[in-house]
């Protein structure tokens, strides 16, 4: 639904970087790996949180 605030595995705050990651790597066409490096999301546990996330608010919005 929304990006988790923290990485499930290590507890690092990753929500902070989601908007920029989304703007640059999802909507933009930058290389996701490079964007994550620049954002300081180093560990692969944190990186998978960003790479595998899908925003679903738009999908569930009509059913409030």
């Amino acid at each position: 639904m929304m990006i988790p605030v923290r990485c499930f595995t290590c507890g690092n705050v990753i929500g902070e970087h989601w908007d920029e990651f989304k703007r640059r790597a999802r909507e933009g066409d930058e290389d996701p790996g490079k964007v994550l490096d620049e954002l300081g999301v180093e560990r692969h546990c944190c990186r998978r949180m960003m790479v595998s996330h899908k925003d679903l608010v738009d999908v569930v919005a009509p059913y409030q």
Partner: protein
Amino acid sequence: MTNDFEVEFIEPGERSARFLVRGVSPAVANGIRRAMVADVPTFSIDTVRFVENSSVMFDEMIGLRLGLVPLSTPIGDFEEGDVVTLALDVEGPATAYSGDLESADAMVQPADENIPIIELKDGQHLEFEADAVLDSGKSHAKHQGGVSVGYRHLQRVEVAGDAGEFEEQEPNILRGVIEEAAAEHADADADATDGDLVATDAFDNDLTNRYPGKEVEVHDVPDAFVFHVETDGSFSVEELVLRAAETLGDRAAELESKVAI
């Protein structure tokens, strides 16, 4: 007891740092590590009173997300159990961010301001008042100030001889920080001197990159630990380490006074 500590920063940083401590016993190193994770208190939202929540998430889900937002925790001014009230009022269409939280105390603020709490559509409204409590990581993981806190032995690398001349050399992977003890063989780094501290990332964690064609021996350096400390933003690494050491000292003082009676 001998207490000749030597501390050296390998990668200094505000929220993430690596430093070497020499002369520390494994018991104390582990005590400090454990204290950093579970005994240094931080503020975290604990109770939320919703005024209105017409977003697509349930109150509980928003409460969970709020609890995980790190809040800056100044030293000295607060005691465990203290409460600070925060409030948020956002009307859609907009996204409620952690930065929209208004704190009653200027010293306790969200450490990160761009964490999305919930995306609000047209006409949706989120308004609540929340209590942040100062508590330790022992009671709930959201109060942990340190994330991924750990240590490794400092490792000393010595060249034992030449590798077989016609053999294909296997990679020799090593992670952590090494203490240079064979500078004359460190081909990749021309200004290497014995005693240098080198993070293994510098040679891609593969000793055969640094000492090509050599047979190497790796030993742990006794009583020398390389700490890797990251905080969630509630305070700096420096404060976290000092406060962790302080909690250990406080308990020792308490034990001493109770034993004396």
